[in-house]
């Protein structure tokens, strides 16, 4: 819709002064009203002066070689609803194309049969002719019925109207519906473009973030390697023997270096998981092997914290899984369980056949502090640290372990779940399908 400047005209004098400025004029408004303001303001008609306003009417082009039908349609559209439609007319395809080149129509109503072609020819020419913003087209016909309608829709028309059924109401409704449908599809197309751009931008950001993590990790871990090695050299007597106290301090320093390394590794792993860059290496894996390795991994921590860790249930089966990754999950769950358990309590890793023997459920249960109900839905989020857990233990880490465990379990087509009660304990559990040999 061309916009014409809104000029609130009160008197001729004001018009004269406003006319001194440049105002864009729609050259194609020959069939409606126009302001011939470029030539002689004094000769401007009263009607023109008083009707300068922003034109919100739908601009419609009627294309038909029957002048009586054109007049009838103009009356249908502009009779009682002069404020709704503004109408141009054309009798041939070539005339219609000229007008389309000069105006931005909101809708075209085109007779199926024209002197220089068909209505569908006009639509095809507009589509392939380099016109921008091709408006929605409605084909009208006095004969042809469904075949004509089908051909019209296939050619790109949005609707079809039989001349026999045309009246003021049907014509207006068909035009309004066509325009609304067209605007919706334009809006959808625009949204799709914006989404595509947003996706491209996100992908670029993801790659940049990955690169950033790699760079940061690399730049930190090399000096960390040097620091760790110097401490280790001192421990090993490179500059003389250390006493017990000095040795202990050196060991604490080395433990801190290892903790930093672990957290950087977790950070990178999380990034890789989120970017879909972590690949599993699945193989037939004995469950007892998974269980043994996992329990061994927390043996030292359990001894220090005086927590008993033991395993119960079925282990004499195999699963198709990435063994290192499942051990990583189980070790993480056991590590958390031990960390947040009271002294002289039990942590249990249970394995139980389920789903009629087609699956095995791994479950790590502790009798620790538990997780509050309002935190349970967030417990697998990155960087989540339970407030209750923070108050119980100072060694919280980056908070990525459970998020990583969840991702790894999902990569194995399963779900990591939680049952918990405050001050009673928690159970984290997931299922894996048994190797087909065991079913």
């Amino acid at each position, binding site marked *: 819709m061309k916009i014409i400047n809104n000029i609130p005209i009160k008197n001729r004098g004001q018009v004269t002064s406003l006319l001194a400025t440049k105002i864009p004029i729609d050259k194609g408004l020959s069939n409606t009203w126009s302001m011939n303001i470029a030539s002689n303001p004094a000769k401007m008609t009263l009607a023109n002066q008083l009707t300068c306003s922003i034109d919100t009417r739908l601009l419609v082009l009627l294309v038909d070689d029957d002048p009586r039908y054109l007049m009838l349609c103009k009356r249908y559209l502009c009779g009682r609803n002069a404020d709704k439609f503004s109408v141009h007319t054309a009798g041939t395809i070539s005339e219609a194309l000229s007008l389309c080149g000069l105006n931005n129509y909101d809708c075209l109503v085109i007779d199926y049969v024209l002197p220089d072609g068909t209505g569908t020819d006009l639509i095809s020419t507009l589509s392939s002719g380099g016109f921008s913003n091709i408006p929605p087209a409605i084909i009208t016909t006095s004969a042809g019925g469904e075949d004509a309608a089908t051909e019209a829709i296939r050619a790109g028309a949005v609707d079809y109207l039989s001349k026999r059924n045309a009246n003021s109401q049907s014509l207006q409704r068909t035009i309004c519906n066509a325009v609304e449908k067209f605007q919706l599809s334009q809006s959808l197309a625009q949204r799709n473009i914006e989404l595509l751009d947003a996706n491209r931008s996100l992908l670029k950001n993801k790659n940049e973030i990955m690169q950033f993590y790699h760079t940061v990790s690399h730049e930190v871990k090399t000096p960390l390697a*040097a620091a760790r090695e*110097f401490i280790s050299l001192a421990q090993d007597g490179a500059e003389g023997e250390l006493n017990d106290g000095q040795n202990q301090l050196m060991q604490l320093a080395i433990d801190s270096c290892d903790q930093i390394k672990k957290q950087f590794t977790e950070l990178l792993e999380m990034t890789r998981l989120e970017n879909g860059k972590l690949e599993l290496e699945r193989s037939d894996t004995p469950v007892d092997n998974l269980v043994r390795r996992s329990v061994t991994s927390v043996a030292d921590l359990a001894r220090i914290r005086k927590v008993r860790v033991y395993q119960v249930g079925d282990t004499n089966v195999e699963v198709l899984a990435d063994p290192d990754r499942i051990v990583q999950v189980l070790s993480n769950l056991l590590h958390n369980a031990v960390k947040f358990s009271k002294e002289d309590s039990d942590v249990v890793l249970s394995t139980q056949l389920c789903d009629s023997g087609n699956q095995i459920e791994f479950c790590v249960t502790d009798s620790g502090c538990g997780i509050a109900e309002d935190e349970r839905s967030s417990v697998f989020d990155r960087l989540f640290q339970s407030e209750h857990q923070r108050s119980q233990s100072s060694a919280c880490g980056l908070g990525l372990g459970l998020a990583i465990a969840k991702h790894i379990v999902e990569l194995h087509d399963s779900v990591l779940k939680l049952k918990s009660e405050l001050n009673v304990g928690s159970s984290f559990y997931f299922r894996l399908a048994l190797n087909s040999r065991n079913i």
Partner: protein
Amino acid sequence: MKKVLLIEDDAKLSLALQMRLKMMKYDVACSVDAVRAMDEANRHQPELVILDINLPGGNGFVVAERLRKNISTMSTPIIFITASEKPEYRQQANNIPQSAFLLKPFSAAQLADAVSRCLNDDDEVYEL
């Protein structure tokens, strides 16, 4: 004493590793970049090369390729060391025969294990 060529551009880590290797009773030569690495290899004829992957003047894999093309070092075991966890680095190292891979920071025990295995078993690829 067996000779080890250490190619590492970080001065402090290079010093720490030199001290460690000397404690392990190896004769250590050093280079700080890919360009001078080949000169040092030709001069010292090492029995083992410990090679950082991210080097000034070209990465460690380029150096490894040159070492393998050089008659005097074509069978010399290489231990690749890196702080980067890019999976493609590990894969590329796996493709080079008689090589091992260590991720920084590594312990003295891990380094000793890698060195000992590289110098004792020439035909295997060791991945750590």
